[in-house]
């Protein structure tokens, strides 16, 4: 009996959180998570790109397998992802210029977000069917957003605390991430 979509979603969200357990999407996680108001839209944009990338990757994989062109898999995935990000950028610029400006440089950086390519690669490696892939990408995106929001909230609070100067910056964020990751280990086995 293959894994159910719900179980895959819960696993990607909690037990195998993309950021805290699978180490995907760390660059934006360390870079954008200092303010809650930028962290949340970043999470939403990334989730959307992950969803689109997952759909495209599923279709591409079917196409490539039919013609025995598996060695072109990586190149085609990354080109599709770069194009999707370009598309999202254009759509946002037209329909929500404020959001576009708020996200700034981080929007094109979604292309190099390991989480987006990671979704495509992992779903191919685990041979997920269409419904499972959708659940996986949505769960992964939600997990990424959850980790980002959690980290942003903690960091905002910490700005009012007396952190030793030597630890400020990335070192502190990493230690926090380690503690969050430790906490998320408690979700093991939740998805069943």
């Amino acid at each position: 009996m293959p894994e159910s979509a719900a179980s895959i979603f819960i696993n990607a969200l909690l037990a195998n959180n993309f950021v805290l357990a699978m180490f995907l999407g760390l660059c934006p996680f360390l870079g954008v998570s200092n303010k809650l108001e930028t962290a949340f839209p970043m999470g939403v944009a990334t989730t959307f790109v992950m969803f689109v990338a997952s759909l495209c990757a599923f279709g591409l994989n079917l196409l490539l397998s039919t013609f025995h062109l598996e060695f072109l898999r990586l190149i085609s995935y990354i080109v599709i992802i770069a194009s999707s990000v370009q598309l999202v950028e254009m759509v946002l610029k037209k329909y929500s210029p404020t959001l576009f400006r708020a996200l700034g440089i981080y929007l094109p950086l979604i292309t190099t977000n390991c989480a987006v390519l990671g979704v495509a690669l992992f779903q191919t490696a685990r041979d997920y069917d269409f419904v499972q892939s959708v659940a996986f990408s949505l769960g992964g995106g939600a997990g990424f957003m959850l980790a980002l929001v959690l980290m942003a909230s903690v960091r905002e609070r910490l700005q009012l605390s007396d952190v030793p100067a030597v630890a400020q910056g990335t070192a502190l964020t990493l230690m926090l991430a380690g503690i969050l990751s430790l906490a998320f280990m408690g979700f093991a086995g939740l998805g069943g």
Partner: protein
Amino acid sequence: MNAEVIHPQTTPTLAMIRTLGLIAAICGLIIVSAYQGTFDAVQENKRIAVERAVFKVIPGARSIGEYLALPDGRVEKAGAGGAVPAGAVKFYAGYDDAGSLAGIAAEGSAKGYADNVRILFAYDQATSSITAFGVVAMRETPGIGDKILVDKDFLANFPLEAKVAADLKALANAIVTVKHGTRTKPWEIDAISGATITSRAVGKAINDAAQILLPRIGPNLDKLKEKS
């Protein structure tokens, strides 16, 4: 002072297409050369890995035959290239020195703690039992999940009863992992205390593969008995 606006030079479309085409051609050439150049070595590596794994779970085996158990109940030799048609299950028949069947081995995989746990289990048709298993790939926690390889009580679960139901559609009793110390039936697997998730993954991996494969083995035993 020159008041003209100086327009930035944009590349004409034809030149762009020509350059992109050139780059695509170069990259395509590099990829295909790498793929062709490494193909034989990769296939050989995969073959050696499979052989090593099968010889480990079927101790008497000296050579291997690769087969596909098709959805319609037939069994046929697996072709080169390793493509598995939908609904079919790939399995390995181990033959001893004399060329007669020593055991059947098949892969199963299920989600463990960190990622999928891939195992190879051996089935002895004479006793209708699963005699041993080996791990092909896993990323479980060292010291906890990887106890499935060495824990004496866990290994004592095998041989595991795996009789096929009378209607030849599934196993008579599903193989299931039970809580440590509560094993009562010969088709249950006693989990390792403190490593339940990985133990359950082993049970699920074996059950998922066996439910489909084992009913198709019995009717085709004659085809498999001698190395072809």
